[in-house]
């Protein structure tokens, strides 16, 4: 109804989004610019559509279970199959989860209406999909990436997922298949389709957006966010325009992007393809394109004119959803700490930048509680070794132990350290000190307290650095996230005290993950790791220097680049001579001091 100007071509009118708002494209210091074959330069404008399966027990419109991986056609009921006489009833939990998402991205949760999207395809037995069209439940949110770039969220709407087709014959591809088989277990599973504004300006931002979105969905319990199981799927709307211009050109929608890596590749390929078309005077046709991972190319699936005519109309079998301000406020009040706030917290406690890779990675993996709790324990262990469980001022360690940890029934006594003289080895540490008994939930509550954070903040810089290194590099694999903070803290305490080198600590850590009964001390003893005393180490360094006089001369007189290269050589030699027991950092420091 707005397009009333009989003379205006569609290209000249102000472009608007699905809700009639003018389209804006923000600037960024990270914009993908591609060169066309003729050398002209084109910049990316991209929006993302993410489909997230909601973490409900049942389907969107019926009580059939929402469960992945079951035998085909076992989680279906008459509503799923669209049998005559069946009627849909909205799943309350799905509505709450959609509203939760709206609150998490600062959006408006509004009165919404379901619509029928009509098309004929065997993945929907009803021959239509129930979705939301012009009145989605969530509009107008924002999502801030770890880099600080803000991507607008135009809308998020509720709909139902489709069934899964398997193509028989023709190498399992749709073209050339003999026939297809359909499993309707997934049909009707609640979906939240989250549509961003075209605020994504680079492949890196696209990956960061999806990754941040996934963190939020997982943190709030909205979806399990598993791209590999298809519970989170991404389509990219890609267009390009001359570098520095403010045009909005024709876009293509890229489907079948199944990983963050493919997403970046698909966007880069498609931007270059469109740039070449524009540069050679050809037209980019608005269409849906299929990303082929093996070829690294996109190809036409169908043009917009062919099939994108879904004849939406209000679903007559469902009444509108209107949660009301009070209920939305109550949902907002239950939001957990979101990834952005968790990055800020981890950065503040560790003294790292919010954008530091370690901070981003640890929060993305949801291991920030583990890292913070380990730091709090490190402080406690340090205060203990200084002469008493509550030694040190301010007595944050003692206080949070007494007031927070003990009431939460977290094992308090650290396991005995075989490397250190143990004055109270008779204490019943064996049973009560099982740190894995502390449930993840208790640890999270513990860390969230001011006392827990204060203790973590008190940890030494060395401990903070080591904890971040271990969690980012050594605890990402299977089982790593489950390592109890106390056991990690004991390891870090030994490292910081110079009882273990970084290389040794990594080996010990692997054992701790594999063997829940092991402690840092017991593993170190079993492996024969003993701290080298400084005198012995210095003697080794002197011996290596004496054996390599010309390298030493170059090291002594060379520029920083040469010196850096030769540092590696000398450290390697010392490591070899000491069978890896030397501390690389200490060797480097000795080399530096001897050279001046």
């Amino acid at each position, binding site marked *: 109804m707005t397009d009333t100007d009989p003379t205006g071509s569609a290209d000249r009118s102000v472009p608007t989004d699905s809700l009639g708002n003018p389209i804006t494209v923000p600037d960024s210091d990270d914009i993908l610019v591609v060169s066309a074959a003729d050398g002209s330069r084109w910049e990316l404008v991209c929006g993302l559509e993410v489909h997230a399966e909601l973490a*409900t*027990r*049942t389907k969107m419109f*019926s*009580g*059939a*279970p929402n469960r992945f991986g079951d*035998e*085909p*056609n*076992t*989680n*279906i*009921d008459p509503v799923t*199959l669209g*049998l005559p006489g069946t009627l849909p*009833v*909205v*799943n*309350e*939990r*799905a*509505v709450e989860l959609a509203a939760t998402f709206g609150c998490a991205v600062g959006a408006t949760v509004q*009165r919404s*209406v379901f619509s029928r999207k*009509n*098309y*004929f*395809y*065997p*993945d929907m037995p009803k021959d239509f999909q129930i979705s939301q069209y012009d009145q989605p439940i969530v509009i107008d949110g924002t999502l801030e990436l770890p880099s600080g770039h803000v991507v607008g969220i135009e809308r998020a709407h509720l709909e139902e997922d*489709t069934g899964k*087709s*398997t193509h028989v014959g023709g190498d399992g591809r*749709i073209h050339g*298949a*003999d*026939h*297809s*088989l*359909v*499993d*309707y277990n997934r049909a009707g599973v609640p979906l939240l389709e989250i549509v961003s504004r075209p605020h994504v300006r680079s492949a890196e931002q696209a990956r960061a957006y999806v990754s941040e979105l996934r963190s939020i969905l997982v943190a709030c319990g909205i979806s399990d966010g598993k791209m590999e199981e298809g519970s989170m799927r991404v389509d990219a709307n890609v267009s390009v325009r001359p570098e520095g211009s403010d045009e909005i050109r024709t876009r293509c929608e890229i*489907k079948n992007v199944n990983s963050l890596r493919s997403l970046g590749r698909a966007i880069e390929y498609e931007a270059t393809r469109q740039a070449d078309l524009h540069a050679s005077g050809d037209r980019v046709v608005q269409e*849906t394109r*299929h990303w082929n991972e093996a070829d690294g190319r996109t190809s036409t*699936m*169908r043009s917009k004119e062919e*099939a*994108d*005519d*879904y*004849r939406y109309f*209000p679903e*007559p079998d469902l*009444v*509108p*959803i*209107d*949660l009301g301000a009070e209920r939305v406020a109550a949902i907002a009040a239950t939001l957990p700490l979101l990834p952005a706030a968790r990055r800020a917290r981890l950065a503040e406690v560790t003294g790292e930048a919010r954008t530091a890779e370690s901070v981003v990675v640890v929060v993305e993996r949801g291991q920030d509680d583990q890292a913070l709790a380990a730091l709090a324990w490190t402080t406690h262990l340090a205060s203990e070794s200084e002469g008493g469980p509550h030694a040190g001022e301010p007595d944050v360690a003692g206080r949070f132990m007494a007031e927070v940890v003990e009431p939460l029934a977290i094992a308090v006594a650290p396991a005995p350290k075989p490397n250190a003289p143990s004055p109270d080895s008779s204490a019943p540490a064996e049973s009560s000190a099982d740190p894995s008994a502390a449930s993840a939930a208790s640890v999270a509550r513990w860390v969230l307290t001011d006392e827990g954070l204060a203790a973590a903040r008190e940890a030494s810089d060395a401990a903070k650095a080591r904890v971040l290194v271990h969690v980012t590099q050594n605890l990402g694999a299977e089982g790593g996230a489950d390592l109890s903070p106390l056991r990690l803290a004991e390891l870090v305490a030994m490292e910081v005290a110079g009882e273990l080198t970084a290389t040794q600590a990594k080996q010990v850590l692997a054992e701790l993950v594999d063997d829940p009964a092991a402690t840092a001390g017991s593993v170190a003893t079993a492996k024969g790791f003993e701290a080298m005393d400084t005198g012995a180490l210095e003697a080794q360094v002197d011996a290596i220097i004496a054996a390599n006089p010309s390298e030493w001369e170059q090291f002594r007189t060379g520029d920083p680049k040469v010196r850096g290269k030769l540092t590696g050589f000398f450290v390697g030699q010392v490591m070899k001579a000491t069978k890896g027991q030397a501390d690389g950092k200490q060797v480097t420091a000795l080399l530096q001091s001897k050279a001046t």
Partner: protein
Amino acid sequence: MSVRITRDDVAHVATLARLSLADDELDTFTAQLAAVLEHAEDVAALDLADVPPTSHPVPLVNVLRPDVPGPTLSPEDALAAAPQAEDGRFRVPTILGEAP
């Protein structure tokens, strides 16, 4: 505002609805649909700026169901009405083109 529905529009809509219409049927339905749309235009001519759109005739909202699993069909029952089944799945003829 007044745009008359054409024979081509009707043919397009018929294609979308998977209806195969003969030439004379296209003429019939073009005239009938034009009459229906003209009637709608009578309403559009009124000043309805203050009237909210009605998506539903009943003034109800939030008819919801708790997220509790209910009974399911056995795969045998589910597939019993399928024209063809194979390997616990509904067998369908070759699909032309990708999913929308």
